């Protein structure tokens, strides 16, 4: 029996005789992946991968989302025209697609027009936020691109949006060669790549793996030439695979799994910062108890943020009370509200509820920011608020149903999450403060003309210092008067083999895999 097992082991170990430092294996739940077309992709995994296949005109480096750096463009300038902002980009020479062709202004124009024509889920970044119109992007010469956007749009937001895959440069000839029925090669680029990024897509077996290989013509050469993204959904299996060396990076481990990994010298844990906020939304439409500002104030004093973060979240989150996440311009570190049930009770009595207030707290049955089940977060809040006379009845339902109820403004209080669509404070300010945007402010019935005006003014302000000052006023105002209680900004811990160096996941979920190296 023993000998049989040994023979079996030897038989299968043949396949292990490869140079494992030349392949990086990244395990996680990639099931949200539905396309790798840079102009269409809008899912976490898809954006993360496409970011390694395509280059954008400008980009962010590491965790710094405030400084734009050169990408395909070596320089750029923003000018004020009579009716438009005029942005001019100088392309660097010698960037090449995986097809071997050089990247020229024609390809950039094609890619921008392609994004507008395909109308993918992220296209509103171009059409609405940037108000970019078809024909507004021009090639002045093979290495110069000019883009015009209306004065009512924010050039800062537009530049931030250009770091995102939607502005990724696609080989226009390759895409057109594979176009079917005027789809700009959308079907083709779902499963294939035609970019100038450090990697090219070799294979995507849905539900199983995605394989990337170094783009032989890329300007930036990856340290590990081959990357395999392995679909592993089950956290216990993910941990087993990491511990046995079958994968190098594990995303989605449980807090217990992470603790075990961190204690083992063969592994390490990297903390990925996010721009996500977990918050409570209170419906303030007339007739609701939360329409009374004193009740909202009471709720703010009835939330024990410190215990929530240190206990339930095991410290995997940043304490924050204002609505622009840490990492973006305009982040306001103020945390004036401390857990004070007695004060909350008094405020509640002043508001006309001396016997306490009963209400429904809506929550998803799914996972909240920081990898903790939402019903657990709700239960902790319920217990803390109960001491202040705020009696929450928890209703936990499927996430899609929570969203539908929230969108229909049929909630009283909801536990929800938010991530900005692009790395700019306006990605939060408009949805959170402008009722007319029909987003979070609207869902919670928060119609404050002053807040909305501040958000619009700050979005268009070109001077960073003045912009910061405007956001300070706005975040302060919404913190005191708004319909939200911001709970925390989660971080995402990722387990890796100690042999892996240079791994980073930035708050926009971008992972520059080409910077990762592997020791033998």
């Amino acid at each position, binding site marked *: 029996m023993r000998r049989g097992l040994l023979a079996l082991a030897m038989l*299968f170990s043949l396949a292990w005789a490869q140079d*494992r430092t030349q392949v990086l294996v990244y395990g996680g739940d990639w099931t949200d992946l539905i396309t790798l077309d840079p102009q269409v992709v809008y899912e976490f995994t898809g954006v993360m991968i496409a970011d390694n296949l395509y280059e954008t005109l400008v980009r962010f480096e590491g965790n710094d989302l405030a400084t734009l750096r050169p990408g395909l463009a070596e320089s750029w300038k923003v000018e004020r025209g009579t009716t438009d902002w005029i942005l001019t980009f100088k392309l660097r020479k010698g960037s090449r697609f995986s097809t071997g062709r050089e990247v020229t202004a024609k390809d950039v124009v094609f890619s921008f027009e392609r994004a507008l024509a395909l109308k993918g889920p992220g296209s*509103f970044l171009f059409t609405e936020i940037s108000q970019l119109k078809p024909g507004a992007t021009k090639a002045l010469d093979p290495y110069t691109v000019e883009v015009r956007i209306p004065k009512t749009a924010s050039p800062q937001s537009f530049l931030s949006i250009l770091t995102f895959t939607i502005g990724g440069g696609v080989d226009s000839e390759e895409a057109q060669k594979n176009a079917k029925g005027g789809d700009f090669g959308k079907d083709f680029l779902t499963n294939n790549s035609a970019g100038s990024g450090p990697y090219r897509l070799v294979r995507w077996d849905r539900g199983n793996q995605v394989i990337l290989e170094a783009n032989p013509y890329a300007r930036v050469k990856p340290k590990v030439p081959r990357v395999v993204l392995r679909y592993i959904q089950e956290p*216990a299996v993910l941990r087993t695979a990491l511990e046995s060396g*079958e994968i190098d990076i594990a995303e989605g481990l449980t807090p217990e799994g992470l603790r075990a990994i961190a204690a083992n010298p063969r592994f390490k844990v990297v903390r990925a910062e996010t721009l996500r906020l977990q918050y409570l939304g209170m419906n303030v439409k007339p007739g609701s108890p939360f329409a009374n500002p004193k009740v909202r104030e009471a709720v703010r004093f009835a939330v024990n943020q410190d215990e929530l973060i240190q206990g339930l979240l095991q410290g995997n989150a940043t304490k924050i009370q204002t609505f622009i996440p840490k990492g973006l311009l305009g982040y306001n570190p103020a945390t004036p509200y401390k857990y004070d049930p007695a004060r909350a009770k008094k405020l509640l009595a002043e508001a006309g509820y001396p016997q306490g207030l009963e209400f429904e707290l809506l929550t998803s049955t799914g996972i909240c920011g920081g990898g903790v089940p939402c019903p657990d977060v709700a239960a902790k809040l319920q217990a803390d608020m109960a001491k202040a006379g705020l009696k929450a009845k928890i209703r936990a339902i499927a996430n899609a149903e929570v969203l539908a109820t929230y969108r229909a403004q049929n909630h009283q209080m909801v536990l*929800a*999450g938010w991530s900005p669509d692009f790395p700019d404070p306006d990605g939060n300010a408009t949805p959170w403060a402008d009722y007319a945007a029909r987003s979070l402010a609207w869902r919670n019935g928060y119609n404050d003309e002053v807040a909305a005006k501040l958000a619009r003014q700050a979005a268009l302000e070109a001077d960073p210092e003045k912009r910061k000052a405007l956001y300070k006023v706005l975040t302060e105002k919404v913190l005191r008067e708004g319909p939200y209680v911001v709970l925390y900004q989660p971080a995402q811990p990722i387990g890796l083999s100690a042999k892996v160096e240079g791994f980073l996941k930035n708050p926009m979920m971008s992972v520059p895999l080409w910077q990762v190296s592997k020791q033998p």
Partner: protein
Amino acid sequence: MGAYILRRLFMVLFVGVGITFITFLIAQVIPIDPAAAALGENAREEQIQEFRQRYGLDKPILVQYALYLQRLLQLDLGRSLRTGRPVAEDLKEFFPATLELALAAFLVAVLLGLAAGVWAALRQNRLPDLLVRLMALLLGSTPVFFLAILLLDLLHRRLGLLPGPGRLDPFLIPPPPVTGLTTLDALLARDWGAFQDALAHLLLPAFVLGSASAALLARMTRAAMLEVLSQDYVRTAWAKGLSERQVVLRHALKNAALPVLTLLGSLMGGLLSGAVLTETIFSWPGLGRYVTQSATSLDFPAVMGVTLLVGLVYSFLNLLVDLLYALLDPRIRYA
């Protein structure tokens, strides 16, 4: 015989309509909006409206169903709400993995189950019988996820005897996809290393998935064999001085096969309809995982596609079992 098969195939059409109609009805009972489910928390109202129009979700339910049937007649299963791809293409990609795993699990079930059942029946109430019954009880009642994680931890993580989750070592270059069955593709590419590795990756999930079926089969075979072994003709066979092998294989097993065959048909059907837990734990990209993801995002065209496929598989397996009856028992005739 030919007319019988034709008639049965015709019935399959009605099964298909029935399945889709019931699935459509269920879609109506669930109070969640598929557009909201597909677009997530940041979606704007206009995007949701646009999505509803694009997929025809704004039309009355009966109109939606009529349109679906109309497309189905042209063999078009529609587009998935979640992946945006034709459902048929998704099925083509996910079904081969399930097929490979199901065939392997079926093999495990038949080899283990039949052998153990026969052995137990021949040694009734003695040690082998007790062992088989105990194992059958254990394997039949151990939850799949527990068995899977236990075996993975023991055989993969601790002993390193068998590979971990997935279909192939990620450090290997996978063979070009032809059939979608990794073992077969590796053979076609004459890549022996990949073939061995794919086979090794198949062992654990096949055992885990097949073990419960094996347990059921062992008990069924044992019971059927015991009944046959007490028949007069078996006693006559023994009396003629035939060897145990001849008695068992020629006289007893063939007659015990009918009830076992019925079970085999439904077991294979069950294995082919996708094993959610086994597929999830072993990161096996099959139908079971596809359909759970589709169901949780209320992707009804996809769910309907899978249900239809599974319905067809069951119908054909039943037909096959019925035809095999006639082969095993000459008294059965179809006209």
